[in-house]
């Protein structure tokens, strides 16, 4: 006997910040298929976009991408007609520690406060970010051409100048590239402000499910995806298109 499982409403694709978004989708009764890969995979270029095969994994990421497609019965990713809620292309934990290790600062107040600091101009900051993140921006552009794609910026977990400026700088580059974006943290806390404690996961590096729910509310409010009917039964997490028992 086979059980028909409803297809997902969207794919959530990204790094570890994808989890809160997926939890938010669950809360609101949206069915999602999630592919969440370590930020390091994205940073190292182990996730690529192939013009004919879509998102492909290399090295350690290959099995994860292929497994996701097999599990969901997708021939390729993106899956035709399924919108993508994307949250990748930042991975600030992989670039900011090295950027700042010698005291490079993008903010005057932080430069003034430390006589060993180096001031970095906005032009240099953007060029540095672009050197590491242009490939991800290109990937988002290609995804956007194939299916409706919304880039959801990760929440700000600190108001340290480098963190805010890099995050907002990368987000601005994505917007300049024509990618549709949503910045839930700015909507919730204000531009350049960190996520309130109540919306943080215990690791203090990610948003929690409450944050995810707020983010998805905003996403629905922006019309990216239809809000489920109020009486919709919250389904179990979508795992495969067809399950045979």
């Amino acid at each position: 006997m086979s059980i028909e499982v409803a297809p997902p409403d969207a794919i959530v694709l990204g790094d570890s910040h994808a989890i809160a978004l997926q939890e938010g989708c669950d809360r609101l009764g949206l069915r999602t298929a999630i592919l969440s890969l370590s930020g390091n995979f994205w940073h190292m270029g182990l996730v690529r976009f192939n013009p004919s095969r879509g998102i492909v994994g290399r090295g350690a990421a290959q099995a994860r991408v292929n497994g996701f497609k097999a599990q969901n019965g997708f021939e390729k990713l993106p899956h035709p007609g399924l919108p993508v809620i994307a949250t990748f292309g930042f991975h600030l934990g992989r670039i900011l520690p090295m950027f700042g290790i010698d005291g490079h600062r993008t903010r005057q107040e932080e430069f003034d406060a430390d006589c060993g600091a180096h001031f970095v101009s906005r032009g240099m900051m953007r060029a540095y970010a672009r050197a590491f993140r242009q490939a991800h921006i290109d990937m988002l552009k290609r995804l956007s051409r194939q299916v409706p794609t919304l880039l959801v910026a990760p929440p700000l977990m600190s108001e340290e100048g480098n963190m805010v400026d890099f995050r907002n700088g990368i987000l601005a580059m994505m917007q300049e590239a024509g990618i549709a974006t949503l910045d839930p943290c700015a909507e919730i806390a204000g531009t350049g402000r960190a996520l309130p404690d109540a919306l943080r996961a215990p690791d203090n590096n990610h948003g929690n499910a409450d944050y995810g729910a707020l983010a998805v509310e905003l996403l629905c409010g922006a019309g990216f995806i239809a809000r489920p009917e109020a009486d919709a039964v919250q389904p179990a997490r979508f795992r495969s298109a067809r399950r045979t028992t």
Partner: protein
Amino acid sequence: MPQKTNPYSDLPQEAFWRSGVAEAGVFGLAGLWRSRWSLPQDARFSTYGSCFAQHISRALVERGLNWLNAEPAPRRTPHDLAREYNYGIFSARTGNVYTAAQLRLLLQLASGEVAPDAPEIWEENGRHFDSLRPAIEPGGFDSAREAILSRASMARAVARSVGRADVFVFTLGLTEGWENAETGQPYALCPGTLAGAFDAERHAFRNYGFARVEADMRAALALLRGLNPAIRVLLTVSPVPLTATASGGHVLVATTYSKSVLRAVAGELQAADEGVDYFPSYEIITGAPTRGAFYAPNLRSVEPVGVAQVMGHFFAGLRLDGAKAHEGGAAGPDEAADEAAVEAAMAAEELVCEEMVLEAFNEH
């Protein structure tokens, strides 16, 4: 007939043109320079000056000597990007310092005698350029405030590089330059060439003579010693000719004048001050033995073989025979250890993130 005794009779062969130059040939020249100081074997060098000075920075790094990079690019900056933003060329992001007047102002900034916002910032089509370093950022800065902050950062780095150095290497490049006619502020380049707008009323050409160059260099020496009383100063003169002269004369004649003044000032300072030495990069490239062979076809750029020849003589005469003077011996922070610590911290965070990803599959 017995040999007459006179001051020339006991001189070494390099004191005579025939044996020292003509017979030795360009690749046989020896004893051109011997450092007047015995330096610690881990001596730290900071390098500034005109474009030829870049070769000295690079050669010190290639030799594994302690070249101070007091304003490094952020770690992991791709090499081409670092070059584009003028990181790692001199010991701070000064850009080329061609004249003694520029050096003096640079050290006034470094010592706090001149405020970072005092020299001009040029605005052009909404972009902002540092009049002391018009090419330091491709396309200029977003704002005047940002240009001043970057200049302040550079000034701090110059002060650090002087404070931590054993030897300050400076390559004198030009006597010709441009100043603000009212304030006397020197510019790196004529306004209106790379950036800024030329105004004949405000911008004045100067061809600094011996007295002015010497005065600026003496002031610079005092500023250097204010930052580091023990610092030694090694002067060189760039063998790169003028690209153009605004003197009204022929560029060949103007070049000879310019280099002669600089060479004479360097010699004067060396003779008068035990803390100053002169290294003859100019003579090695321009001297008669080379017959101009070290120049590229444009007769201006120095070919790599010429640079190698210069640096060969430099290292042959450098006396790094003193006891180590610096704990750890490294010129800068222990980069490898720093990076390993950061990598470990990032890896730990990565593990947490990976665990979060796996937890998403937990249905219990």
